[in-house]
């Protein structure tokens, strides 16, 4: 593991936009005074004429993006998850979602790993909010390679897309030269019959680590990377749940309304099995380094291992 490269998924967002700029000559990238942090700044430097800074007015940005999309242009609107999904929820719902306009929302700094900024900026609710919007595609990539590929794929989706990225540098485990992003398809990262671990975002790498350690102890886990939370790859989730009969969901998001809830919604109706959810419990975060907070709130391979052992008892 010595030569593992670490990179934040927001960097994949920035790189994906640059790549798209080469192909879509009239695309527009919008931001709300966070271009450096969201990594849209690179696009701004490369294509200054196609970059719009809306200032600190996220609701306005979302409705403007809707107007731009209505004229047939590819448009990305960027901010922190807290403001893109939280503050601007109703603009996303009514200006973008209801008319099903193909605005691509790039939401960075999602989850507890925002770190030192503390609870006001740690958005653990965005997946829950976005899932309720009919026709919204939700993508939560696991590493920077997957993030970049997802951004490029999002350009072709005929409808609104919410893309969730992190601030914190995490291991890059996908190989950019071979990785193919398939929208709505779970990625099987480990095969096992004893338990299913369904993970998303930066928890995917922790899930793989957990599966490796569990294997040494004779516990074989199926590991699914759910980069597309909506539409959920129900087929893959059900197939694995049928095989193992026990499911652990893992996400850097509230246990209310996120991946865990989406998996439970699916399994409760179509394949009822025992499920345990790992996520942010019903509470706010606090300031601290990303690593400290991830450990504190149980976003770790260790906690996955512990939870797996509880469920297979």
């Amino acid at each position, binding site marked *: 593991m010595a030569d593992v490269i670490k990179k934040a998924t927001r960097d994949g967002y920035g790189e994906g936009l640059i790549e798209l700029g080469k192909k879509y000559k009239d695309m527009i990238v919008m931001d709300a005074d966070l271009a450096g942090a969201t990594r849209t700044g690179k696009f701004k430097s490369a294509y200054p004429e196609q970059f719009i800074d809306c*200032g600190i007015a996220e609701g306005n940005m979302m409705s403007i993006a809707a*107007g731009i999309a209505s004229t047939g242009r590819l448009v990305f609107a960027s901010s922190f998850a807290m403001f893109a999904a939280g503050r601007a929820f109703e603009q996303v719902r009514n200006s973008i979602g209801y008319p099903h306009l193909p605005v691509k929302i790039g939401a960075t700094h999602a989850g507890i790993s925002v770190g030192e900024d503390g609870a006001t900026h740690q958005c653990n609710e965005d997946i829950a909010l976005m899932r309720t919007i009919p026709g919204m595609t939700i993508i939560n990539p696991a590493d920077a390679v997957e993030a970049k590929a997802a951004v490029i794929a999002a350009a072709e989706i005929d409808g609104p897309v919410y893309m969730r990225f992190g601030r914190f540098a995490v291991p890059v485990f996908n190989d950019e030269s071979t990785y193919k992003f398939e929208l709505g398809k779970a990625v099987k990262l480990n095969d096992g019959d004893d338990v299913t671990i369904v993970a998303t975002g930066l928890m995917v790498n922790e899930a793989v680590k957990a599966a490796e350690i569990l294997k040494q102890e004779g516990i074989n886990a199926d590991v699914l990377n759910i980069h597309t939370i909506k539409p959920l790859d129900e087929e893959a989730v059900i197939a694995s749940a049928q095989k193992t009969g026990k499911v652990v969901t893992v996400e850097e998001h509230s246990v209310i309304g996120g991946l865990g809830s989406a998996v439970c919604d699916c399994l409760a109706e179509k394949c009822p099995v025992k499920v345990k959810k790992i996520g942010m419990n019903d509470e706010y975060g606090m300031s601290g380094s990303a690593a400290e907070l991830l450990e504190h709130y149980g976003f770790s391979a260790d906690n996955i291992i512990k939870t797996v052992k509880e469920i297979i008892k």
Partner: protein
Amino acid sequence: MDNSTKKELEIFATKVRMGVIEGTYCAKAGHPGGSLSIADVLAYLYNGEMNIDPKNPDCADRDRFVLSKGHAAPALYAALALKGYFSTDELKTLRHKGALLQGHPDMKHIPGVDMSTGSLGQGISAACGMAISGKMAGKDYRVYTILGDGEIQEGQVWEAAMFAGFKKLDNLVAFVDFNNLQIDGRMTDVMSDLPIDEKFKAFNWNVININGNDLEEIENAYKMARECKGKPTCIIGKTVKGKGVSFMEDVCSWHGVAPNEEQYNDAMKELKATLESLEG
């Protein structure tokens, strides 16, 4: 404006008002007051000012119209029907289950509707998006939006005003329907947003105050907007809510209530008389 044009527009506006009464009566719901107050400006926009083709509603180079005060949909629908975007029969099923005409404008399904609106404050932002997209593409289409004077209490309106002024969107014209009534009472009693003109001026807009029910003043204002370069234009139209139906005029309770059968008959009788006198 010559007399025959003026008469044509007055006839169109009267027919829009009849459509508003028809639609809200059939729906047993809707917002007649604020729909009647904008019939004149819609008559002007849809008969000469805007470059549109009802046979080709999605033409990329068309002018755009965004009804930011989306609850005045009955007036917009009546104007669109009169222009031939869809049959006037549709007005009779306004707000009915399964019908074309939704309670608020729905761009996905209704021909001629350029943006889905209804949640106040969002339409003007969408109009800004259309305007800046046109400018960036070097297109010369123009974008028109109508706001309510209650609507501009929404903070998003001022975010959009700041954006349009700073970005010098001179292809954007906003009309504020200043009738001084909102659901809870007089705007100046509920939460005054006066002075409206100074606020838009402060955001670098070209501001024109007019009588918003006077077609000649409306025409002059939109002509001045075309002449103005480097700034978006805000036309503040002093209007009478419920205009054209005497018992609805300047009465707050007609904001969101449909006429009953007797009121419908009285309103239609008055509007028909207006129409007959215009058509001579």
